[in-house]
């Protein structure tokens, strides 16, 4: 950015609007300034501040992989004032984007290993960036397993991509919905993510697990991974505390001495275990 104003967003054009579920939507955003698009790069795990002028900013991970750069995708659930305004955007409208911020998944270090992705509900979007990133570099990794759960079948996001991953011989996809959330023709599992994970019992040998979900899911999933023999240093997650600046200034996302926006959002379960219980 030419300006030294670190709070000044890039102007983005909404290029495409995709409904994932009744309340989850994906936006494809293109940089209005070609030079900015050219200069922009990011890595899996990073996040940004998305804004609707007049409504404010909110924080999400970048949902598309860096291997498919040049634009930004974000997937969000309509929950508050800004996400409602984002949802009201139509193709051709302008919004703002600041980023990329935060640290990244160390995917280069994972070469030659098995990857186990575990996500719940609206937490698949931050994982999707990473999954595609790794699938686009498929030969670098060995077995790829994805465990994804949502409250109901209707709440599963990226249905088309789930089908795509399901169809791939080099990906094992386990889908589950909470009890009561199934439909008559539901083919996947029924049960909470930690339960399904424990039942599937993926091998921990030479495997990196990446877990993404609400705080409560993390609290139940880590012990299952312990039981399966994963070292906590081989388990990664991305934290989501309330954030405003994304720049390590506003003091909101802190967990103990950690700035989630600067030191994270990517942490190992080992690091999370050392944090005070304030997430």
């Amino acid at each position, binding site marked *: 950015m030419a300006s030294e104003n670190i709070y000044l967003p890039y102007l983005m054009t909404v290029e495409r609007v995709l409904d994932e579920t009744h309340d989850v939507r994906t936006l494809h955003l293109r940089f209005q300034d070609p030079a900015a698009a050219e200069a922009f790069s990011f890595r899996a795990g990073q996040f940004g501040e998305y804004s609707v*002028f*007049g409504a*404010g*900013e909110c924080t999400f991970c970048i949902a598309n992989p860096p291997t498919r750069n040049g634009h930004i995708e974000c997937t969000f659930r309509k929950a508050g004032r800004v996400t409602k305004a984002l949802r009201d955007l139509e193709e051709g409208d302008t919004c*703002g984007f600041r980023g990329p911020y935060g640290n990244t998944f160390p995917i280069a270090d994972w070469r030659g290993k098995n990857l186990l992705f575990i996500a719940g509900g609206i937490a698949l979007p931050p994982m999707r960036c990473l999954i595609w990133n790794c699938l686009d570099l498929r030969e670098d990794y060995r077995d790829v397993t994805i465990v994804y759960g949502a409250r109901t079948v209707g709440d599963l996001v990226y249905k088309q991509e789930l089908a795509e991953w399901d169809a791939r011989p080099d990906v094992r996809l386990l889908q589950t919905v909470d009890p009561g959330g199934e439909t008559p023709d539901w083919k996947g599992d029924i049960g909470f993510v930690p339960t399904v994970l424990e039942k599937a019992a993926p091998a921990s040998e030479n495997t990196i697990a990446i877990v993404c979900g*609400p705080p409560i899911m993390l609290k139940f999933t880590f012990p299952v991974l312990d039981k399966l023999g994963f070292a906590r240093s081989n388990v990664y997650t991305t934290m989501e505390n309330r954030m405003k600046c994304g720049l390590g200034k*506003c003091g909101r996302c*802190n967990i103990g001495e950690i700035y989630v926006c*600067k030191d994270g959002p990517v942490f190992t379960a080992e690091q999370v275990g050392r944090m005070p219980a304030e997430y």
Partner: protein
Amino acid sequence: MATLLTSANLTALVGRALSQQYRVVGPRRDGELTLLAPLAAAEQLNLGVLMARNSIKEFFFPRCELLFHYTLGRGGVALREPADFPRTLIVGSRACDAASLERLDRLFGWDYRDSFYFKRREASTVVTVVCDRCDEACFCSSVGLDPRSAAGSDVLLVPLAAGGTYRVAAVTAKGEALLAEWADLFTAGEPGPERVAAPPVRFDQARAREFLADNFEHPLWQEQFRACLGCGTCTYLCPVCHCFDIVDEGSLAGGARLKNWDSCQFALFTRHTSGHNPRPGQDARWRQRLRHKFLYYPDRFGAAACVGCGRCERACPVGIGIREPLQALAGGAESVGGARRD
């Protein structure tokens, strides 16, 4: 020989600065209340009050700062950035106030640089008047400072026992430039004895730190802070508290994005949209406030996020500050070396 400045010449200096289009900020009395505020006339400078209610941070990190304007039109969105960072002379800050700037520099400057803060820093000259007295709430000496600490100041004015005159010490190049600009107001002379306050040490910072580090869970968090009302007075008057919110205001046609003070003492500060709140009660919020100031901030930025000005304690509606809780949690200075109270 030393450089001296009489009170009358200090007033004259303020008058000249005003006439040269400086924004001059100093303690200004309005009834019972003394605030650091822009002065309209040199006579408004009032150095008779120990400590203004508000802190100096307001002139570097305003309570409501414009980040940019936006206008929505047919051609899309246009952004316009503010350009007004007035040349400012601050007269009558205290050593604690000035030290807070040096602390804030670290936060606003690490990694990403907050240009708003630093443009205001660059445009400002800070003339600190060393305290000749202190009160019950003062505790700068407990956090490694004292009334003569020069950090953050450009010029120090040290009151002389004889009264009516200050010994002048330029701390920075900016300070020297100020002395040179109005050289005729300063005189050379024998300073004589100085009159500088010596606030007692009220708690042991190292022990406070140790308590905070060791006692994330402790019944005292609830007991000590149950009376806390959950307002933002302490954080907003604190010269080092720096948390903020970013909000948009305006209509479909245009508006602004603003950076506003926010407070870790507010329930909403950390609450997720889902309703989950990582710090659900005032006990957790106070623990964060104290650990942030005396543990996290020193670890990351090398100094406590507290300068001992005592504003929190003077203004708290229910009499909570920093000094008393730390004495209660970690033992006061009088009990340093004695048995721990926990």
